[in-house]
Structures are given as structure tokens and as C-alpha cells.
């Protein structure tokens, strides 16, 4: 909302600079966006002049040599405008004046005649487009009068950002009212006081009729008729104000509608009555697919929610958004029908969104205006129509309206203000602030009763709203104390959250950089990962109104984001990447486990999707061997080592079993198990997937964090005596068939070892001729320990014998 400084001060002038007004409003009322500037940098050097004579230039056909009275006697000004004539009152820039475009005016010799100033056109003043001739002012202002007394030459513009609940502040008078409330400076009477005298013939019903078929969407439709309208440019004051407020002057009638809207926040629309067949206006919803060309020259198609203002022959305007071309006011217009209506804000917003068409009018209507505002704007506009267009107002106002909502009466308890804000505001101040905001206030001891003014009807409806009004005008910045809530409740992170941090830290400390990738992704990721369509990870949750296809579905795996980041970094010169992400996947279906990280969230209503928290890591590019070793591709076992270290940091163990994933190397892929239950995958990324991302090779894993945390003993550990009865260690070598997995060997050892066997750790793998074709030897370190005695050699030998028997069950034998 652009608020020209001089226009605002016409209604409330606290004697503050534009910057001070901006910051004062920011602290109490509406946020300041910026201060901008319209017109010349300063008023200096711009004066009213009177053309005493205009003679032909001796040496130039198209120039006139004028004698101009600028209050300090006559001066000679050479002027090129065809319309300059003796007797005119004109705008003059004296030498030294700085023009809006920044040039400083000096004395100039034009074809041998010295010109001592410049007679200005509208365009030079930046108040209009007209450059063909000079701006001729109305008579009255004495020569030498500063031009700024006629209209703003140099205009600071206070650009405010009213919030959507403050439609009143989309009008200059509303902003002036706020300024008055905040500063106490006097507020000028409202512009809608008084009305134009109706001097037209007959009565309004003789000229026009209005039928509202949808009263719920059009709470009020008022119309007035003006005859004898003379279309002309608006006077400079109006043009300057419109310009500074960001609107283009067009002609006096259109300018009046814009001007009144800018002043009151109530939009208006002028019809050329002679282009409304029969003067009949019908307000109805559109028929499906109905079309109309709006004022901007675009043909629009409507659905049945859109409200149209129609004449007998069809639509002539889109209610509350934009008029149509058929009934546009033009230079030949002599009779005007002025519509000032109230529309249903929700409907206007919906229609404007659907059409992709926003206007100054829709921006105000969508915030819901009170029907009372319509008649106020009629009065302001009528006065201007008579004054500026020489129009005659036809007696009467067509006013199709339902029940006007009654003003709210709200009680404000004194203690409530203190209780909510924690600020003591004296009762008299509370009443005063509300009165300045045009509430009708009746004091009742420490309490008061307030009647809400129409312009705040939809915003202030409860005691809490009055508390805000009183509090903000009083001022938070100056008066709000700083105290802390007196609530006793254990705060902090849950165990799950603490362990998640630990897991993230573990990944980082293992050398994996944590990334944060976008969860809204391109739906093509699933196909690029070779995930079949019937896989749950291909059943993507999509949005209906994406910004672009690149961000239109939620990810179902963290892998694609890691691959993207790997590609990015490798392409930007990184020799290798080791990356990890801690975040959610988003699936249509799944069984949440306990806790937020398992996808179970607080609240009575079940969330519509399944959002488990995942940990994922990926490495690509040679892992460093340095100056004394060989670089090595990060293969399956590198990632498995990281996964095991991560699990170990959480105090739990992971197991894997060979299992394929569409995006993994078929022979180097595994399912990750925690406590025997599937919790994710690990493997070398499929060469075709690597190729898709432009990578040579990569390995990765992705696991649900909830089962890891559920399996973690952290926090619940109990002391165990491992010192009194020390462990016995034995290394064994087991020869088995090539097809037997290490996990099966370890399991057979555990089965045979019973509870005295405390750990099994594989430390070597050997293949050689003496073992025979298709055989391999695993070297394992076993730890035996009892909690209540030192184990004897005989005991250990007996266990070892049972282990041997157990291994025979899988075709294994102890070697040596």
C-alpha cells in the first residue's frame, strides 16, 4: 500500500518525517516496507507562474518567448509548447531546480534568447503522460506560490504492508486513523461526511435497475447515476496523488473511482450508462464456460462460482475483480452509472485465484469489506463527480442489500489486559486508544464496553481482539516486560532424539558428511533407481499443484538424494564422497513402530502417510590410500564397516543376509537385519544406476533408525563383572564349502558354544590348494567366559568338541 506523504498529512499530520511515520506505524500498527519517492527530489525552485505574454521566437518557428510572472517580477522563458498563451497559470521550474529525472536546471540560451526557467509539462513533473503541451493550472494561485501548495512536486511515498485482517488500512484514511491513534495527532473529518447535491433530472430508478440473484455473494449493490458528465483529464492534484500511489491517471471519471478506492479502501466501478442496454444490471453467477473480455483485453472463461455483473445482453464485468470492455467509460461518455458494491470475500479470492487475475479491487474485496463502506464511497465519489466532471447527480441511490450486520459490542475487563499481556495499562488510556480507533467506548469502572466500528467489523469480534488493540497502541517495544513462564515440566530431548543425534555424530565421525536434501523430488527417481512399479517405493505421494515436475512427489528413499549430492560434488572436483543423510522417507503405506522416529505421531487423528526416519550413507570415488597405500573403491565391505560401526555406537548389532534390491549389484546386495527383523538394505549400487547418475561406482546403505534405537541398550546397561573370572581366548580355523556363508559358520559355532561362548570374531579368510577345490578356511577368534568361575582347560576343550560337532552339521571341519 503506497501512501503518499502529502495525502496522508491532509488527514493526519503529527509533524513527523516520512521515516518517522513509517517506523511509528511499524511499531504500533502496520509494517513499513520502504520509503520511496515520486517526482522531483525537492520542492525547491518549482513555483506557480503567470504567462504575461507569449511571442514568436525571432529565430525559431516552433519556439515562443514568454514573459512569465513568478512572483519576483517578470522573467523570460523560452517555451516549445504549442499551447502556451498569455494569461495562463502554469508550473515553472526556476534555474537551480532539480527535475524528477535528476537534471539540474540552469539558464540556457535558446537560439540567441536566454531562457530563465522552464514552463513544465505533466510528463516533466511525472504526474501524467502528456508531453505535447504545458500543464495549464486552474487560475487562483498567485504567481510565485510554491508549486507544492498546488500539488505534491516532490513526494515521499510511505510503502506499507497491511496484514490481511486490516482491509481498512488499504485506504489512506484508514492509515491516517492509525496514525492518529498512535500519535494522538488530530484526525481530519472523514471524507465521506456530507454528500453531493442531487441536481439531475428525475430519479435514479428512471435510468437504471439492479437485480441481485445471488444476495449471499453480493451483500450490497449500490448504484448512482450521473448525467452531463464531461470526460476530461483530472486536475494535477489528483493526478499527482494517483501517480504517487502507483496508479496511472486515465480520465476524470476513472480517476475518481481509483482515487476514492485509494482513500476509503472501497473499490468502485463506473459504467458508461449508454452502453448498458436498458440500464439493467443483473448480478448472477456465471454459466459454466461463460466468456467475457476484461478491461485488460484478455478473454476470460468462468466457472459457476464466479459472480458476474451483467446487463441484458450478457456479462459486463467480473464482480469485484475487473470490469469489462463493453461498458468502459470513454471520451464520449456523458452518463455514468457508478457501482459501489460489497462482495463475499471468500468468493472473490477463489475466483481471482482461479482466473489468475488480481487487481487493486480484488485485493481489497477478498479481505471482506463491510456493506456500510459502500455508501460511504458513493458519497465521496459523488462529490468529486460533481466537482471535477461537471456532472449532475440524479436523485436517489439504488441500494440492493440484505441485512446489514450489526456492530459488535464487546466488554474489555481491565484485569484481562494485564493477565494476557503482562503490562499494566491505565483504564483511561485503554478507553482513549479505542476511541481514537473510532470505537464507541462506555467506561464501567476498570472495565469498558466497546462498539466496534464498521471498518473493523470482521477483525475485532472478541475481548482478545480488544486486548490487542489496546496493547499495540500502548506499545510493546516500550512497555513489554521480560519474564519467563512459570511452568514446571521436564524439558529436553527424548531418548530417541538423543540417540538419533548420536547416530548422526557417529556417521560424521566415520568420515561421512551429513547432507540435507530436498524431500520434494522429481517422480522419475524411482524409475532411474530401477524400482519396479509395483514396489511400494514406486507408489509416490504426489502433490496436485507443484511448482514444477522437478519437485512434485515426496521421496520414498534417501538414496536418490545421496546420488545427486555425490554427482554434484564429484563434478565439482571432489576426489571422492562419503555422504550421509538423516531424515524421513514418505510412504503411502507401512506399519509405524512406536515413537516419532518410527512414524507414530501425537494427536487424535492419524497422519495420512507413513513417515519413518532413516539413516543412509553412500561412498563413491577411491577411498584414500595416501602415499604409502593403494586407493581402493568403496566396496560393499567399506559400507558394511561403517554400518557396523554406526550400530556399535548405538550399542547394538546388525546382521545382513544376501537379498537383492533393484538398485543394487545383484551379487553384492543384502538386507540389513536388526534383532532378526528387516531394517534396511546395504550394497554396491547397480552399475546401471551408477551410470544414470554418471558415477563410476558407489556403495550405500539405508536403514530405519527406530529398530536400531529399540535394540540399543544405551541407558539401560547393568554392570557385569568381567574382571574376577577372566575370559579364555582361542583361535580356530574352520574349513567349509565355498557356498557356506560366514554367518552360517558363526551361527554353527554359537550353537555349539552355548552360553560360555561370549563372542565369535572372524579375522581371516583363506583359500588354497591344500584345502581342495571349492573349500575355504575361516579363521575365528572365540572368547569363552563364565560369570562365576575361571574356566578350566577341560571345560573349554569340551565346548570346543561340541563346536566341532556343530560345524560338521554344515559340512565344516576344524583345521589343525
Amino acid at each position, binding site marked *: 500500500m503506497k501512501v503518499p506523504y502529502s495525502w496522508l498529512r491532509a488527514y493526519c499530520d503529527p509533524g513527523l518525517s516520512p521515516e518517522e511515520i513509517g517506523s511509528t506505524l511499524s511499531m504500533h500498527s502496520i509494517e513499513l516496507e520502504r520509503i520511496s519517492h515520486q517526482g522531483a527530489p525537492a520542492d525547491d525552485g518549482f513555483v506557480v507562474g503567470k504567462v504575461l505574454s507569449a511571442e514568436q521566437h525571432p529565430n525559431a518557428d516552433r519556439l515562443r518567448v514568454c514573459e512569465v510572472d513568478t512572483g519576483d517580477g517578470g522573467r523570460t522563458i523560452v517555451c516549445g509548447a504549442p499551447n502556451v498563451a498569455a494569461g495562463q497559470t502554469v508550473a515553472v521550474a526556476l534555474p537551480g531546480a532539480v527535475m524528477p529525472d535528476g537534471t539540474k536546471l540552469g539558464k540556457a540560451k535558446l537560439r540567441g534568447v536566454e531562457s530563465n526557467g522552464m514552463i513544465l509539462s505533466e510528463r516533466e513533473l511525472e504526474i501524467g503522460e502528456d508531453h505535447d503541451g504545458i500543464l495549464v493550472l486552474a487560475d487562483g494561485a498567485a504567481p510565485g506560490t510554491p508549486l507544492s501548495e498546488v500539488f505534491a512536486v516532490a513526494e515521499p511515498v510511505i510503502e506499507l504492508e497491511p496484514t490481511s485482517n486490516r482491509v481498512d488500512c488499504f485506504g489512506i484514511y484508514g492509515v491516517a486513523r492509525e496514525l492518529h491513534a498512535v500519535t494522538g495527532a488530530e484526525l481530519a473529518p472523514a471524507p465521506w461526511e456530507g454528500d453531493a447535491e442531487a441536481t439531475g433530472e428525475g430519479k435514479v430508478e428512471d435510468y437504471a435497475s439492479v437485480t441481485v440473484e445471488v444476495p449471499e455473494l453480493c451483500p450490497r449493490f449500490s448504484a448512482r447515476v450521473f448525467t452531463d458528465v464531461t470526460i476530461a483529464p483530472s486536475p494535477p492534484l489528483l493526478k499527482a496523488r494517483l501517480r504517487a500511489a502507483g496508479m496511472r491517471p486515465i480520465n476524470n471519471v476513472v480517476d475518481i473511482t481509483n482515487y476514492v478506492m485509494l482513500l476509503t479502501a472501497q473499490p468502485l466501478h463506473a459504467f458508461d450508462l449508454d452502453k448498458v442496454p436498458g440500464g439493467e444490471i443483473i448480478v448472477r453467477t456465471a454459466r459454466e464456460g461463460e466468456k467475457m473480455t476484461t478491461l485488460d483485453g484478455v478473454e476470460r472463461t468462468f466457472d459457476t462460482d464466479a459472480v458476474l455483473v451483467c446487463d441484458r445482453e450478457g456479462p459486463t464485468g467480473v464482480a469485484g475483480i475487473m470490469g469489462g470492455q463493453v461498458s468502459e467509460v470513454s471520451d464520449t461518455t456523458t452518463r455514468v452509472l457508478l457501482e459501489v458494491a460489497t462482495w463475499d470475500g471468500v468468493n472473490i479470492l477463489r475466483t481471482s485465484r482461479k482466473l489468475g487475475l488480481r487487481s487493486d479491487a480484488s485485493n481489497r474485496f477478498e479481505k471482506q469489506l463491510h456493506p456500510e463502506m459502500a455508501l460511504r464511497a458513493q458519497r465521496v465519489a459523488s462529490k468529486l463527480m460533481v466537482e471535477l466532471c461537471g456532472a449532475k447527480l440524479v436523485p436517489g441511490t439504488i441500494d440492493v442489500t440484505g441485512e446489514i450486520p450489526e456492530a459488535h459490542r464487546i466488554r474489555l475487563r481491565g484485569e484481562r489486559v494485564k493477565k494476557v499481556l503482562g503490562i499494566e495499562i491505565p483504564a483511561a488510556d485503554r478507553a482513549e486508544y479505542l476511541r481514537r480507533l473510532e470505537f464507541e467506548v462506555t467506561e464501567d469502572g476498570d472495565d469498558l464496553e466497546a462498539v466496534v466500528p464498521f471498518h473493523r467489523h470482521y477483525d475485532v469480534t472478541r475481548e482478545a481482539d480488544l486486548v490487542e488493540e489496546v496493547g499495540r497502541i500502548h506499545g510493546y517495544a516500550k512497555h513489554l516486560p521480560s519474564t519467563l513462564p512459570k511452568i514446571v515440566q521436564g524439558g529436553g530431548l527424548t531418548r530417541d532424539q538423543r540417540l538419533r543425534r548420536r547416530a548422526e555424530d557417529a556417521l560424521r565421525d566415520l*568420515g561421512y*558428511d551429513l547432507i*540435507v536434501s530436498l524431500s520434494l523430488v522429481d517422480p522419475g527417481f524411482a524409475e532411474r533407481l530401477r524400482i519396479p512399479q509395483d514396489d511400494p517405493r514406486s507408489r509416490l505421494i504426489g502433490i496436485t499443484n507443484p511448482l514444477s515436475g522437478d519437485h512434485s512427489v515426496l521421496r520414498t528413499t534417501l538414496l536418490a538424494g545421496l546420488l545427486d549430492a555425490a554427482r554434484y560434488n564429484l563434478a565439482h572436483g*571432489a576426489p571422492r564422497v562419503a*555422504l550421509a543423510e538423516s531424515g524421513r522417507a514418505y510412504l503411502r503405506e507401512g506399519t509405524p513402530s512406536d515413537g516419532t522416529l518410527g512414524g507414530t505421531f501425537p494427536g487424535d487423528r492419524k497422519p495420512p502417510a507413513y513417515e519413518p526416519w532413516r539413516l543412509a550413507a553412500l561412498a563413491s570415488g577411491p577411498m*584414500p590410500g595416501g602415499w604409502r597405500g593403494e586407493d581402493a573403491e568403496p566396496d560393499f565391505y567399506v559400507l558394511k564397516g561403517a554400518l557396523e560401526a554406526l550400530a556399535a555406537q548405538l550399542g547394538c548389532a546388525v546382521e545382513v543376509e544376501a537379498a537383492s534390491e533393484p538398485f543394487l549389484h545383484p551379487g553384492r546386495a543384502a538386507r540389513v537385519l536388526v534383532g532378526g527383523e528387516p531394517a534396511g538394505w546395504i550394497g554396491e549400487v547397480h552399475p546401471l544406476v551408477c551410470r544414470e547418475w554418471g558415477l563410476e561406482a558407489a556403495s550405500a546403505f539405508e536403514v530405519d533408525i527406530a529398530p536400531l534405537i529399540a535394540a540399543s541398550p544405551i541407558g539401560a546397561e547393568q554392570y557385569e563383572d568381567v574382571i574376577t573370572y577372566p575370559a579364555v581366548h582361542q583361535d580356530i580355523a574352520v574349513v567349509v564349502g565355498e557356498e557356506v556363508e560366514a554367518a552360517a559358520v558363526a551361527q554353527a559355532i554359537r550353537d555349539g558354544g552355548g552360553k560360555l561362548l561370549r563372542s565369535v570374531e572372524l579375522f581371516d579368510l583363506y583359500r588354497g590348494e591344500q584345502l581342495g577345490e571349492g573349500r575355504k578356511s575361516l579363521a575365528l577368534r572365540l572368547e569363552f567366559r563364565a560369570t562365576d568361575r575361571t574356566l578350566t582347560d577341560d571345560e573349554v576343550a569340551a565346548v570346543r568338541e561340541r563346536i566341532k560337532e556343530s560345524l560338521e552339521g554344515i559340512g565344516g571341519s576344524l583345521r589343525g
Partner: protein
Amino acid sequence: MLERIEKLRQEASAAIAGASDAAALEEIRVRYLGRKSELTGILRGIADLDPAERGPVGSGANAARKELEAALDALAAELEAAELERELAEGAIDVTLPGAPQLPAAAQNLLIRTQREIEDVFAGLGFRVLEGPEVELDYYNFTALNHPPGHPARMEQDTFYVDPATLAPDVKIDGLAPGPEDVVLRTHTSPMQVRSMEVQEPPIMIVVPGRCYRSDPFDATHSPVFHQIEGLAVGEDITLADLKGTLDAFARAIFGPERETRFRPGFFPFTEPSTEVDVSCFRCGGSGVLPDGTRDPLCKGVGWIEILGSGMVDPNVFGFVREHGYDPDKVQGFAFGMGIERIAMLKHAIPDLRKFFENDVRVVRQFR
């Protein structure tokens, strides 16, 4: 005999003094102290001597033997030490070569770190940390936050709507299949206000970090995916002044001990009064001017930087959790929400929000 012993002793001592390696020493040991050596023979033959000679010869020979043994041991130790010295000297390495390679030290990601810092500040003030779903019901994202259908503020949020056809077939909302605007990607972390009040009676103090989504195209300060942290404190006597105190403590913990906050009026449908909160600029100290006299670009010369939106929970919001113990006439409290990226950008001079999602490790590793 005694002279012979003395002679042997002198001979042996000289030989020891001249020995230069372990082999020579061993040879000397065998020659003078071995089983077949003369000195050993003398000691062995003592019994055959004249009784008067036995004493002096025995002690003389023993003394010589001990002396020689000691000299041999001393020299052996000396030679061994010299040998080790030599070996160590040969084993010297170029200590200036690089260390054995590890994966380079990785970094946490500034976004995660900042989120943790903020969580910890509020945890220290007594807030619990909760998390909520991102695919959310319109009910929690809007309706229960006092955004009635058609409310302009609802439209202002630039909501992403979830296509109901892409949800599980058994998802029902009030018993019905979801409509086109019933499920959203949450536009803020505020839906957890109502979710948390449904499961915890007052008093309650929580913060909610997490991802949010809005259909804002990417630019230097916007991303369709971003992070927020929500705060909610509700009890019988929680005031706007308590919000101020809480945010002052936050501002000081994150931006430095001298910081303070400033409240301005704002508008959010789910708070009343609503307040925008600025923090005094930590670069210029609030003056708007840098030490060199130029205008501070961070706060644009204002001395204050907007960091979050907040306010007192609107009574209408309590209306949605009345049966959970939140009678709007009896309880009151505050709520706030801030962008985590914005806090990190301000604090660490990050010029563009997109940097957080680019995942360039050269950037990631600038923040440990």
C-alpha cells in the same frame, strides 16, 4: 700362583678393553672364564693345594673372576646399547610425510547444527522437543489453527495439496475418502500445537522442529522445502511478557549476550495478539552503523532484524482442544515459529538459502 692369577687378570682385562663386538666378548669369556680356561682350572685345583695357599689363591682367583665377569657384562651392555642406538638411527623416518590416510574429517551440516542449538536453548528453558508429520491433515494445518475455509491467510500460505489418489486407499477423514484439499504438506510446524495439546493436558511447553513446504519458487530467501521450529507454552498465567522473556533468552543464547528483542504488531489467525519479533542487530550492535561509519547492510541500517512471528494463542484454537483440558477462559499461552535456515543465514552470513540444499561438501565442511 698368585702372580699367575694377576697376570691372567691383566691379560683378560686388556683383551676386554680391546673388544669391539659381542663375538669378541664371547671369545674372551670362553678363553678366560670358560670351563677349560686357566682361571677355572686354578679354582678347580684349589683342593689340591697346600692348605696355607688355599685361602689366598681361592680368594684371589674368585676376585679376578668376578672382576672379569663384571667388566664383560658392563661392556656387553655398552655394546648392546650402541647396537640399539645404531638400529634406531637407521630406523629414522621422514616425519614430515603426511599421516596415514583416514576419510577426511566430515561435517555435521549447519542446518542440523543450528536446529540442535535452538532445540538445546529451549530444552534448557524447560521445553520438550516434539516432532510431527509432514503430510498433514488440513484440519491440523489450518482449520484447528483458526483458518476457516476460504480464509485469505490460508491462501497466502501457498499450500501444496496432496493428491488424495496418491494416498493409501484406507485413509479416511471423518469417515470419508479425502477430498482434493483435505491433505496438505504442512506449511508450518504449527499443526503440532493442536496435536500436542490433544495428548498433553496443560501446562505444556514444547518446541517442534521440522521440515515445512510452501509453493514458493526457489530464490535467495525461499525454497519450497524449508525448516521451522515452533514453540508453544500454555498454562493458566502465561503472558505476552513471558514470550518476551523466553525469546530474549533465545536471542542471547543464539546471537550473543547483549542481544534483545523488540515486539511489533503482526497478524496470524492462530494468535491474538500477534507479534512480529526483531532481534537487535548483532553486527552493528543495534546502531545500524558499522565501526567504519557505513550503513550496516545486515540490518539495512535499522539496527533490528526480523526473526520470527509469534503471539498469544488465539482462544479459538483452544476451542478445538477444549475437551483435552484447554478451556479458553482458563488457560492462555504463547506460540512462536521461526525459520531455521533464516537463523543460520543471519548468524553465519550465508547469502542464499539454496546453499543448504546444494550439499556442496566444500560449503558443508566450513561449519563443524
